């Protein structure tokens, strides 16, 4: 057990040393993540921080191998480590290419499937699931399919949730620690070793990635940690797996997993809504296009600061991780019942978290008038020839009628659309008529939380004609909304503490 602690400390120290080194290298090479309409950060920040996690993991693993070879009895199995690193290196290279030149979603998915497939080929996969009261369910070739799907899902989940400073890395560290506790309690010390080393590497990196971030994970880092977690969790499964454990594993990383599922459902719904509006078949390719509606985006829109949103999701992840660990360790059927309860309760809890309480607490903030950063505000004009106001600093773009409001809100990630004077009737199709009746006006339009409706937040006077400035700004959450979220944060912390403390106490006793 002390070896695990030592490995964790070594991995953390290595990540603490390597991350600034990678950061300086990126700055020197000019490989920076520049702010844009979809991203939350405001300054150019070095990417590739994930490479430090990869190197810390690799070096600690090689150190353990050396320790093992000189005769110490340490829980280390070279073939498993090689399995993680083989697929992890492929994933890292794919992520690096994507960070540098933007790889298409389809090609990225193919590379992920190849990496997961190669690892699954060399792994000993569970062949059956034990369901209490029913018996064993033989998986056969399905076990390989499940393994590949699971690894690809975890890699993408941690990549997609990587939207605010420290969120993805923190969630990965919490998941790795929770799973390492499950592995320790089941005396699977070699599995606990990989997880503790991964958690240590991520925690060392988190020192620089926490808000305000000095370095980002990058696609390479997020994919690597998701991939390594996916593969390592499979190592923990024996040939016959209790159903409670099968439920507990995804529950631990429910936040990133549900976020990716919700993102795909949301984008599919928008693609069909868009095809209904414009005619033709839905453009399913848009499912892979990024948007600004992930869980963390919703929390930011509700008025939380970046730090509060990250803390909120981390606390929830701790609660989930701790409860899932307890569920996995309870003898059947108690574990299964607890895990099933969590699986049902979780979507409700996430719905509660992501709720922004509608427009009652959102108001146009006059202080922000004209201060919008380019790329966030769109002036929409159905006349493709019109280019009014495009010389204004706050006007980011003018698109033609054929593109329209849906394009702006859904695919291009704008928050607010301003409809031009006397042009509103053409927009009425997309805006449910409410704007058309108030013309001539400029209108602040906000997409509703379910993404289906467009809400009119206010009209700001008549326009004489084209070229006249329209009022542009942001809708801010009121203090009331922020207070509500602070209250939820408080109760979440209170709920988290006893479970986390109980688990920590259990782990200490074993040490």
């Amino acid at each position, binding site marked *: 057990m002390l070896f695990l602690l030592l490995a964790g400390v070594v991995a953390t120290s290595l990540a603490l040393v390597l991350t600034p080194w990678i950061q300086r290298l990126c700055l020197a*090479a*000019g*490989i920076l993540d520049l702010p844009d309409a979809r991203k939350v950060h405001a300054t150019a920040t070095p990417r590739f921080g994930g*490479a430090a996690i990869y190197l810390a993991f*690799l070096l600690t693993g090689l150190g353990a191998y050396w320790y093992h070879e000189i005769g110490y009895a340490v829980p280390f199995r*070279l*073939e498993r480590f*090689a*399995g993680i*690193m*083989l697929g992890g*290196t*492929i994933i*890292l*290279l794919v992520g*690096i*290419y994507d960070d*540098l*030149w933007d790889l298409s979603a389809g090609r990225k998915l193919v590379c992920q499937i190849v990496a997961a497939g190669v690892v699954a080929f*060399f792994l000993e996969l569970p062949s059956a699931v034990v369901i209490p009261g029913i018996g064993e369910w033989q998986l056969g070739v399905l076990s390989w399919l499940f393994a590949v799907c699971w690894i690809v899902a975890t890699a993408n989940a941690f990549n997609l949730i990587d939207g605010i400073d420290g969120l993805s890395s923190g969630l990965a560290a919490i998941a790795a620690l929770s799973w390492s506790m499950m592995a320790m309690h089941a005396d699977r010390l070699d599995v606990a070793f990989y997880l503790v080393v991964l958690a240590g590497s991520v925690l060392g990196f988190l020192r620089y990635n926490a808000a305000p971030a000095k370095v980002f994970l990058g696609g390479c880092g997020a994919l690597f940690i998701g991939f390594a977690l996916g593969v390592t969790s499979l190592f923990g499964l024996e040939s016959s797996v209790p159903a409670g454990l099968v439920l507990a594993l995804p529950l631990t990383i429910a936040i990133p997993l549900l976020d990716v599922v919700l993102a795909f459902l949301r984008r599919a719904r928008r693609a069909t809504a868009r095809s209904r509006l414009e005619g033709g078949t839905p453009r399913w390719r848009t499912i892979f296009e990024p948007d600004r509606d992930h869980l963390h985006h919703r929390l930011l829109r509700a008025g939380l600061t970046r730090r509060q949103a990250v803390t909120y999701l981390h606390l929830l992840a701790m609660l989930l991780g701790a409860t899932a660990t307890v569920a996995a360790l309870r003898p059947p059927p108690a574990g299964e019942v607890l895990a099933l309860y969590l699986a049902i309760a979780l979507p409700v809890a996430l719905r509660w978290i992501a709720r922004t309480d509608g427009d009652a607490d959102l108001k146009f903030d006059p202080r922000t008038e004209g201060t919008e950063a380019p790329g966030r505000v769109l002036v929409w004009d159905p006349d493709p020839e019109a280019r009014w106001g495009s010389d204004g600093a706050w006007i980011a773009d003018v698109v033609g009628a054929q593109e329209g409001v849906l394009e702006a809100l859904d695919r291009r990630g704008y928050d607010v659309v301003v409809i031009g004077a006397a042009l509103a009737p053409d927009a009425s199709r997309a805006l449910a008529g409410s704007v058309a009746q108030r013309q001539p006006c400029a209108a602040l339009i906000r997409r509703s939380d379910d993404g289906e409706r467009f809400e009119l937040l206010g009209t700001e006077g008549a326009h004489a004609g084209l070229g006249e400035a329209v009022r542009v700004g942001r809708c801010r959450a009121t203090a009331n909304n922020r207070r509500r979220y602070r209250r939820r944060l408080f109760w979440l912390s209170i709920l988290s503490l006893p479970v986390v403390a109980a688990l920590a106490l259990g782990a200490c006793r074993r040490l």
Partner: protein
Amino acid sequence: MDDAQRIESRKQLAFYVCFTIGGLLILFFLFVLLLHRA
């Protein structure tokens, strides 16, 4: 050479370095796994 070209060439250099080291590591780990299976 303007800034954009300079950054692009640095990106290419960074990727080639990563690709070479990563490729060697992939071959090494593949070798370890094949040896283990054998």
